[in-house]
């Protein structure tokens, strides 16, 4: 059995790895095509669409030069996205972790009911609230403001859920010992618990950051003022049936992926932890 076993293992190995290499190539083709097209003039994109032809005669750095020196709002959008993402992530993590601690550390009247509300938010498609939420924002005079984008998501249900799962694994003795030392409930949270939460905060920072950086629909509805546009909205507006903005669109798309790729490569572990933890158990 030994020999045939290793032989069939060898064949299976070739098959599996071969399959994954093929999948890898398929997944990478769009990235490769965008990278390639960012060196081609816009007309070529209009005429031929995205393709894989390496045509050195028409390829140049013109789009990149235009991206960095041309007259357009690209870097305004980029900057807006950056600020919005940072503020949104910091506030969301701060509030969500605070709330999650309440759920994880205490037993109190109404806890189960409130936690069901958390789960409910995770099950109701946000999109159904677009219209009433928009009219609420309108009534509050918050149209065109970043707070209208930030506030509704500040107690993020999925993030609360994740933190709560994480906090439940922290021994209650830590909290007790804090109390014995005479610390009040909030000092215990801020001084003893928050430092322990660092890895989970990092995971959620990255995941929330990615969502915020890429968010399109709600910011698109809220923001009317062009100077406040974020990157996804800006890129979307470049694609009009009339305008000929393909040069900027393609190089801008390519450039917009780069920061998040770098972030991903630097913090892979946290991305993956954030994606998978809290997903199943509970």
């Amino acid at each position: 059995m030994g020999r045939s076993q290793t032989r069939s293992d060898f064949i299976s190995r070739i098959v599996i790895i071969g399959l994954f290499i093929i999948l890898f190539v398929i997944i990478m083709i769009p990235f490769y095509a965008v990278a390639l097209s960012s060196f081609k003039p816009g007309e070529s994109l209009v005429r031929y669409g995205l393709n894989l032809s390496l045509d050195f005669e028409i390829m140049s750095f013109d789009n990149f030069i235009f991206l960095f020196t041309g007259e357009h709002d690209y870097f305004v959008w980029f900057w807006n996205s950056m600020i919005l993402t940072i503020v949104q992530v910091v506030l969301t993590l701060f509030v969500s972790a605070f709330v999650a601690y309440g759920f994880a550390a205490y037993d109190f009247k109404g806890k189960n009911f409130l936690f069901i509300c958390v789960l409910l938010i995770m099950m109701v498609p946000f999109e159904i609230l677009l219209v009433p939420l928009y009219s609420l924002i309108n009534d509050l005079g918050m149209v065109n403001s970043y707070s209208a984008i930030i506030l509704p998501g500040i107690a993020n249900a999925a993030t609360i859920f994740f933190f709560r799962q994480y906090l439940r694994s922290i021994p209650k003795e830590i909290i007790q010992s804090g109390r014995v030392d005479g610390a009040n409930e909030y000092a215990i949270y801020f001084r003893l618990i928050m430092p322990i939460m660092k890895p989970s905060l990092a995971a959620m920072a990255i995941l929330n950051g990615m969502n915020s950086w890429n968010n399109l629909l709600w910011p698109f509805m809220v923001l009317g003022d062009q100077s406040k546009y974020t990157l996804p909205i800006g890129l979307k507006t470049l694609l009009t049936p009339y305008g000929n903005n393909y040069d900027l669109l393609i190089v801008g798309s390519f450039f917009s992926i780069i920061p998040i790729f770098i972030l991903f490569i630097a913090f892979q572990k946290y991305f993956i932890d954030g994606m998978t933890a809290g997903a199943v158990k509970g």
Partner: protein
Amino acid sequence: MIKKFVYSQKVAPYVFVLPFILIFLMFWFFPLVNSFIMSFQDRMLGQDPKWIGEANYSKLLTDKVFLISIKNSVVYMLGTLVLLIPFPMLFAVMINSKLMMGREFFKSSFFLPALTSVAVAGTIFRLTFGEMEGSLMNSFLGLFGVEPIKFLKDGNWSMAALLILACWRWTGVNMLYYLSGLKSIDNEYYEAASIDGASAWQKFRMITMPLMKPTTVYVTTISVYAGLAMFTESLMMFNGNKSPQNIGLTIVGYLYRQGIEQNKLGYAAAVGIILLVIAMVINLTQLKFSGMFKKEED
């Protein structure tokens, strides 16, 4: 006095969860109730609402465009279920097997598409599925002698394009969910099965699949949710909310068209409520049949 009250161990938990209560009431509960009320009204932004009973709903049931949007959303959702559950599960098992090499590399590179925004991914795929002979998909099909296809003008082809976009973005993510599910399976089951002479397929059927049921239930739940709520992908693919004969119109797209583009808030709210009901019914049925409610508390 106040300080003592807020600092007491009885009150502290409420202080901790207070931000959630406020946000929930203001940005979820209130809009949801409002949406329900609006759905019985004839209402426009900045005008006094008029109560019209269930007229919006009865109108929706005979609204052909709305029915098209439901069909598109449901087909899309079913498509993502068929494509984005079994394959990622299989890939996860393969990548987890001892025969695999370069595990970390494949894991991270499969995740990369999820990092792109819908704006970028939609743009990429819009151009990939361009109708010209030279664009990516058509030139690929050209290799097999297939005539150029007008992907974004034909209902079936554009649905295929949307599904391919979904597969490209989410296969890696779902694979990660399954990988984390696999981690919790005790190796002893497989060892015992090997002693009994079970084949790889039998192990997969009898051990892996049943033990990964919680993951499958989770992935199904979020896929139903995301599939029914899809809108931005179609918005980017068709460069707007208008597609030829509404082939790319989804339920949320219709909600957006009625509520935001045409300011028919009441009618749009009714669309939202119907979407909520569809999503809830499908997911609760799914959870019931998979026995999730019978699981232990907590």
